[in-house]
């Protein structure tokens, strides 16, 4: 059994896994790229080794280097986090071949669920409905895709075969606009995954994205930890998640049915460890299997908060060959949890990623607040990795309390130096449709605008003007003082020049 874990990831998730290891008394090994030498995960781990240059393919995607470091450091297990190598069956297999425990599912399960055609066929056989589409038809040419599109019907989605996270995904409303969209989807998929293959899928309109967290041990026990509501997305990137879902809450029968189906889907591929079954749910509560994520999810904390189960620690226990400590009856949902993904993106400028040095952070604390983050004052946000920098999670006895707490926590959360989407989340918390739980996966793109939300906000321009003037005045006064003093050995102009440079 292993006592030392290598974390093959970076950022907040690497920190999250290190924390779980610490609590279990396990030694930790971090790996880092040249851009991350000073990152928190390197500083928190017991050991840290360099992988290579900043780009992911030269560092966090270098499976060979990671395995070398594992051997060199004497790590007995590898936790892949999410992204990077987390859903690469070949990497999981290499770990197994080297005698390392891969903290995740068996390579065969990753393959089965990673190949969407097999996944769909498998879960269909287990009695789970799937969304109509061309998955499983293999690598289709542009002409074949165009010919098949009318059979599926518009609107439809183009999705990357190797995909995830919304990359290489395009929505098509008509046959005319399709050729161009296929091209751009292929290009993005090629850049993101090194595989330009795409498939088509019918777009379920008014759909909600609801997923079920499952845990499975090596003794054949599989349980579900309730659902997560993940409908609030922009360009198919999740922005806010909650547990439970306002759409499912109050309908225990639906939750049990979806949970049982998720467990069956997992068992159909002999699944072990933590995983997530994603469903699309239409307004009549019909649910369709979307895909299975064979890894830890970004949004796992909301489930942890309402169930009280530490999913990462359970992952490690399962990988150490222990039986699950919970039965299905032990799983109880207590209250409500919401997670806001804090991204370095400017909500006032088309959510453009923002890079630069974080000069100041004030992190929310207090009752019912959890922050999972990989940043600190002075940390440089680089263009090499994705823009998620922190996750803010609040718990409330009710959904309303969780929302009010989130509002309060967002007010306390100050990040200076890069633009973040905090103002977006603040506007979302004030949105009546969000409060009422009336939203689908298109809500952010189609019905939500920062400009409209800001109009309803209190305007503090006068106070802002007073503050700016007082700060400017203070600076002018200080500059004047420096010039007035005559007894300095260097020229006052030189002093002023230095002082001004310091203020930049």
């Amino acid at each position, binding site marked *: 059994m292993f006592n030392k874990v290598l974390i093959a990831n970076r950022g907040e998730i690497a920190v999250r896994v290190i924390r779980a290891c610490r609590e279990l008394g396990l030694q930790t090994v971090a790996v880092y790229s040249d851009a991350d030498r000073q990152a928190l995960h390197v500083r928190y781990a017991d050991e840290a080794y360099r992988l290579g240059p900043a780009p992911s393919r030269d560092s966090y995607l270098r499976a060979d280097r990671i395995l070398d470091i594992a051997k060199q450091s004497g790590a007995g297990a590898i936790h892949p986090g999410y992204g990077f190598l987390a859903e690469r069956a070949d990497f999981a297999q290499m770990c197994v071949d080297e005698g390392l425990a891969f903290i995740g599912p068996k390579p065969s399960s990753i393959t089965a669920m990673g190949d969407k055609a097999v996944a769909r066929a498998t879960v269909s056989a287990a009695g789970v409905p799937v969304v109509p589409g061309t998955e499983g038809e293999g690598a289709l040419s542009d002409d074949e895709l165009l010919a098949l599109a009318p059979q599926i019907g518009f609107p439809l989605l183009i999705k990357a075969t190797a995909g995830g996270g919304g990359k290489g995904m395009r929505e098509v409303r008509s046959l005319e606009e399709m050729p161009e969209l296929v091209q751009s989807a292929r290009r993005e998929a090629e850049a993101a995954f090194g595989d330009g293959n795409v498939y088509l899928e019918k777009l379920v309109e008014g759909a909600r994205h609801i997923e079920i967290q499952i845990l499975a041990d090596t003794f054949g026990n599989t349980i579900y930890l309730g659902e997560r509501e993940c409908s609030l997305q922009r360009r198919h990137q999740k922005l806010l998640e909650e547990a439970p879902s306002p759409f499912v809450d109050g309908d225990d029968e639906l939750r049990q049915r979806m949970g049982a189906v998720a467990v069956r889907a997992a068992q159909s591929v002999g699944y072990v460890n933590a995983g997530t079954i994603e469903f699309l749910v239409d307004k009549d509560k019909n649910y369709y299997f979307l895909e299975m994520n064979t890894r830890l999810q970004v949004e796992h904390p909301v489930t942890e908060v309402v169930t009280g189960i530490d999913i990462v620690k359970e992952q490690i226990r399962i990988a150490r060959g222990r039986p699950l400590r919970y039965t299905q009856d032990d799983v109880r949902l207590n209250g409500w949890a919401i997670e806001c993904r804090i991204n370095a993106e400017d909500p006032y400028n088309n959510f453009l990623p923002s890079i630069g040095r974080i000069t100041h952070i004030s992190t929310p604390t207090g009752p019912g607040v959890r922050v999972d983050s990989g940043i600190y004052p002075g940390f440089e946000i680089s263009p090499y990795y*994705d823009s998620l920098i922190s996750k803010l999670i609040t718990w409330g006895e009710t959904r309303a309390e969780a929302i009010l707490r989130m509002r309060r926590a967002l007010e306390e959360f100050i990040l200076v130096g890069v633009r973040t989407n905090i103002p977006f989340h603040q506007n979302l918390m004030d949105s009546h449709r969000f409060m009422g739980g009336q939203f689908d996966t298109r809500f952010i793109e189609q019905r939500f605008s920062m400009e409209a939300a*800001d109009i309803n906000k209190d305007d503090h*321009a006068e106070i802002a003007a007073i*503050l700016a003037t007082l700060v*400017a005045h*203070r600076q002018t006064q200080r500059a004047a003082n420096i010039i007035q003093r005559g007894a300095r050995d260097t020229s006052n102009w030189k002093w002023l020049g230095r002082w001004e440079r310091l*203020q930049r």
Partner: protein
Amino acid sequence: MKYITTIGEREFLVEILSDDQIIVNGKLYHVDFQDISEQPVYSLLLEGKSIEAYVYPVEKTWQVLLNGRFYPALVEDERERSLRVAAGSQVQGRGEYQLKAPMPGLVVTVAVVEGQQVEKGEVLVVLESMKMQNELKSPRSGTVSRVRVASGDRVEQQETLLTVS
């Protein structure tokens, strides 16, 4: 000391009488203004109302982050103000817009050619960075006068990509 502070379309005439008294658009306020340690954090007690904000310079303006919202403020004394107004019409005029890379990245597509007419909001360049393809749009209508990059180019932050005039 008198200042004219502009936020968006609105102007505020702020006169600082002393450390604890100011007049804003003709109204007298008692203030207590402190900076918190070495950070750009300021605490203002305005007639007893406790306000905390982050204020830091960005180019010629002050960025005020107050209650989760940014207010870019231009603070000028009377002399600066009259100088700017005198020069105003020319600077404000229809100068060139230079599209600069907001971050380092890879140019995926240049969607326009030199001499092309573009509308406000039209995509000019697709720049890949932080694993995302980012569409850089034109802030106004005009003619693309110069294109300095091609698809496949790596660009640095603040590098000029093209010019709209």
